[in-house]
């Protein structure tokens, strides 16, 4: 881990090494789906596609929780808003079939609006209190989706919306293999490239925001809200901006999810999903973009590994299945979280400052004495 971090640091300073690394990473990411589908299976590629969606979610939540320090426990609601918007605007349910380049920006905008709606009444809350309110908000959105089938059927209630159009641009639909420059690109691979492109876009936006006047204002609010106000930061607007930006990333991921899955129902957006995304942010390294991406990848892949691995391993060792792989999966996941928080409380890949913060340097008590 440490060598990885230090080589990451050298890349920052050496331009040629950075370009070479970028090209190498680009090639790896480009051939990756073909390696996965030929060496493992298409179902694993599907999981990789989902990992991309979770990376987008984790990066969005990272703005709210990691940068601005606002604990949001209902983040999945914005994913739901994006997903349902896609489902309603591109399915036989209403007979609407808008193209994806309309729906994704609309999903980002609508989720952003919901973010502001959540942010506005909770501006005065922090920490535990904010967590409770946002948790309630997440549940409210889910329950609305569950019950908006009467008197007018909008969301089709618990049955969800089926037959959603696959993502398609112009004449190309990603649901079927298509030929591009002589290459035949299968459906899952095409989704992979689309999700990768949008995830990279979100990474880019997040990095730019982090190193800006706005990003500094977010962190200042996280560190000390009163001091931030006295420094001339309009904390109301800057907090609303964090909620809006974070939510809009969730909306994009949600719209992609609906098009990819072809089916949405309220149960995809329960509290457990919010908790999972929060775990990705915290476990990966709150506030640090590479860490959050790592968290998103690990927490999508590891549970699947358990799911697929637990059964065969038990068969091989005991000759029969003693523990339900599903139950075992949650058990091991919980254990992994506890171990991680004990031994790497700042996350697996914390930002440099967070690492220093948790190391507890000798002078760290100075601030406390002043208070």
């Amino acid at each position, binding site marked *: 881990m440490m060598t990885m971090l230090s080589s990451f640091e050298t890349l920052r300073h050496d331009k040629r090494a950075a370009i070479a690394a970028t090209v190498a990473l680009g090639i790896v990411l480009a051939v990756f789906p073909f390696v996965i589908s030929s060496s493992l299976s298409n179902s694993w590629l599907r999981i990789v596609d989902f990992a991309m969606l979770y990376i987008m979610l984790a990066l969005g939540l990272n703005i709210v929780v990691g940068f601005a320090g606002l604990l949001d426990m209902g983040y999945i609601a914005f994913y739901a808003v994006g997903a349902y918007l896609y489902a309603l605007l591109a399915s036989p349910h209403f007979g609407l079939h808008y193209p994806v380049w309309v729906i994704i920006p609309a999903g980002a905008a609508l989720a952003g609006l919901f973010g502001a709606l959540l942010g506005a009444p909770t501006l005065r809350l922090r920490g535990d209190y904010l967590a409770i309110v946002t948790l309630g908000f997440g549940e409210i959105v889910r329950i609305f989706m569950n019950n908006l089938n009467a008197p007018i059927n909008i969301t089709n209630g618990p049955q969800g919306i089926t037959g959603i159009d696959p993502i398609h641009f112009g004449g190309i639909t990603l649901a079927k293999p298509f030929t591009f420059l002589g290459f035949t690109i299968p459906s899952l691979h095409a989704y992979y490239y689309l999700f990768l492109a949008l995830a990279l876009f979100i990474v880019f936006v997040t990095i730019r*925001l982090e190193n800006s006047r706005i990003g500094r204002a977010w962190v200042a609010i996280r560190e000390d809200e009163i001091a931030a106000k*006295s420094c001339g930061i309009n904390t109301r607007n800057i907090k609303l901006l964090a909620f809006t930006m974070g939510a809009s990333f969730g909306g994009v991921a949600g719209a992609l999810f609906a098009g990819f899955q072809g089916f949405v129902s309220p149960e995809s957006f329960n509290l457990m999903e919010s908790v999972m995304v929060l775990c990705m942010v915290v476990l990966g390294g709150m506030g640090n973009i590479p860490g959050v991406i790592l968290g998103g990848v690990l927490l999508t892949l590891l549970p699947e590994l358990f799911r697929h691995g637990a059964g065969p391993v038990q068969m091989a060792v005991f000759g029969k299945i003693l523990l339900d792989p599903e139950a075992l999966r949650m058990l091991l996941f919980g254990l992994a979280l506890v171990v991680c928080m004990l031994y790497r409380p700042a996350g697996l890949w914390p930002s440099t400052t967070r690492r220093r913060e948790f190391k507890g340097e000798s002078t760290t008590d100075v601030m406390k004495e002043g208070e």
Partner: protein
Amino acid sequence: MNMTTLLDARGIAKHFGGVKALSDVSLTINRGEIYGLIGPNGAGKTTFFNVLTGLYHPDGGDLVFDGEKLQASAPDKVAKRGIARTFQNIRLFGNMSAMENVMVGRHPRTHAGVFGAVMRNSRTRKEEAAIRRRAEELLHYVNIADRADDLARNLSYGDQRRLEIARALASDPKLLALDEPAAGMNGTETAALRELIEGIRKDGITVLLIEHDVKLVMGLCDRVAVLDYGQKICEDVPAIVQKDLKVIEAYLGGSIA
């Protein structure tokens, strides 16, 4: 109102439940002076600061700053109007570097929004470079340039005080309000602080100073106001304030009748 007055506080009142923290406090601060606000513990000095900088909503009275009324309870607008402050119990952004702390202080004088930050157009790049340059200058100015990349929480106590002043100066204030800047400092540090405050005044910034160190206040300030139990009991040049009977009574306690 004449041109020399920078801040005119008229009949400021603030109470918390039954406690009258400030009642009918009026004072005027002139441009370019160092104005001291002293008084025993609990006299209402910090409450006055918090009303002035918009953290508390006053229960009465007006604040006129630089010819215009100050909006009550809007700290960010107060900062934008040109009043910067430090806190009695240092409030830095502990997990940001010293440099970043000062850069945050530049917030009200800069404009880049989300669009500018993401596009990083030439205007944003220029602004960002200017913020960085100004922050470097200020760290030099308060003599902690060598700690620029250290986390604020890891600076020594005296350096934290200096960093807070640099952060306040970053907003190009007309009035710098310092809440007990010398608290907990030793003699050498206090002397250096005194030099710093005098330098700030020479640069044309008016200073409002709350301080317990009477020697520092009397030596540094042009005029001094004394608060006791939320009321102003005296306002004059140090030499006269020192001899004022009410002030002596407030500080030494008891009646001298």
